[in-house]
């Protein structure tokens, strides 16, 4: 893969916990720490969805968090990419038969990149973000 001109700018990532067990959340934070250091390429976590290009969603989306997830998604500026981190956001995972799930995530907001795993390794998450960059480029170029 060739590094594109997107890397010249910084890619801001916002993390949303929709009822996760913390496993994926910890791995997301582990992914930004010195061993992996994606900040070299400008990839960093930000505190507000309004600043973000990429939304990382973890967890199976509980009843209370679903409207908040929609609100956070709406607050993000276009072009935006949504990543679903972890198995439970994709299918419910071990929580598939719970009475309090509104998910999977793609039932609530459109998802562009799926990173499976329980919990996915930081390398997998970084790979997902890099995949998201390609999608963002296509969005910016008006291809999608």
């Amino acid at each position, binding site marked *: 893969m060739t590094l594109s001109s997107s890397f010249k700018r910084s890619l801001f990532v*916002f*993390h*949303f*916990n929709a*009822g*996760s*067990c*913390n*496993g*994926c*959340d*910890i*791995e997301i*934070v*582990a992914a930004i*720490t*010195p*061993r992996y250091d994606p900040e070299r390429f400008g990839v960093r*976590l*930000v*505190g*507000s969805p309004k600043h973000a290009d990429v939304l990382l969603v973890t*967890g*199976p989306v*509980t*009843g*209370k*968090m679903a409207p*908040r997830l929609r609100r*956070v998604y709406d607050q993000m500026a276009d072009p935006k990419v949504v990543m679903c981190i972890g198995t*439970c956001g994709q299918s419910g*995972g*071990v*929580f598939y*038969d*719970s*009475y*309090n*799930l509104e998910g999977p995530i793609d039932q609530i907001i459109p998802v562009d990149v799926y990173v499976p795993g*329980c*919990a996915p*390794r930081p390398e997998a998450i970084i790979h997902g973000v890099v995949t998201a960059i390609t999608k963002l480029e296509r969005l910016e170029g008006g291809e999608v």
Partner: protein
Amino acid sequence: MSDEMKKKPYVVPIGPIHPALKEPVQFLFEMEGEVVKKADFAPGQTHRGIEWMGMRRNPVQIVHLTDRICGICGVTHSLSFARAVEQIVDIEVPARADYIRVIIAELERIQSHLLWAGVAAHELGFDTLFYLAWRVREDSLDVIENITGNRINYGLVQIGGVRRDITPEQHPVIHKCLDGYRDLLGKMLNLFLHDTTISIRCKDTGKLSFEEALHLCTVGPTARASGVVKDVRVDYPYAAYGDLDITPILPSAYGGEINGDVYDRIVVRLLEIEQSIGIIETCLKEMPEGGIIWEPKLPKLLAACKKAHGEAIGRHEAPRGECTHYVAMDGNEAPAMWKVKASSYSNLHSWIPMLEGEQLADVPIIVASIDPCLSCTDRVAVVRGNSSDLLTKEDLHRLSVEKTRRIQGC
């Protein structure tokens, strides 16, 4: 604004979405100026109905469900649940499995405390220390991955034992990691406990007296930092803890008095890392030979569970304190009752006496100081009179950093 208006308390809601680390929880603070007059919180945003699901599954399936109660305490819940079932079914766990359980539980304590130390440093605006703590934490995750095959959600504990053995080839890997931590610990203690920034922000902040700690039934490092001598590993030894010489760590172990403030909680957790290193080394040395599981064939294990009647409580000293699982079985495949009481549940109420009377800028570190398995701050709407401002987690973080600078006079 008139004087009347200034004195009027206003409400600051925080949460439930936190951009960085933890689970969602909502706080409501009644403020007078910068001072928190009353604090309240609303957990339950991440309710997934795990107990309800568990009562529709068999014990072996539940063990893997318990891993996913909390991603940080991967072994805590599975160990507590397995111990409860083992008591009901009357399973004798092989001695070697008990030692492996202790080793993985202590490795988990090391990674969890380092994780917390990083978060605490971050909340104080000391990001260099945050990155240092998380970089060294990766070493313990490497060892955990080497032993269990996964960094998070280990799936190591099974009813009646463990699923993977620790082979002699793995010993050097574990020793190398532990030696690294031992060398590093002096540096960590120095950085955390003798740093002016941390001392001025943490001493006498978020105090919890001995009486309050007892009255609110706090557990784990939060209780020990207030001088309560309480540790399940010592009080009710289980697994291989009965063979080990452990004393609950109080902040006085590092000299000085017990104040029950945030600083004392840092002392307790850092010293517990040292204690865990010692425990793992002893366990590796004294680990007996033999099998690692009571019954490797799952259908036989499930049949034994299905026949069992009775109730039991399994408990474990998690990195955050005592975690209990109550299980009742009545001859069916699924348990008749399963109740989980996680350690943070016991500790959350201690937020209220800690937070009341403190400044808004101290809220992040106090909330983090009990190492909650819930989250703290994201979006804060400050309603003063009729106008309202929106404070993000970054604004709060900025307030916290500004306070540090103000105190230092730079």
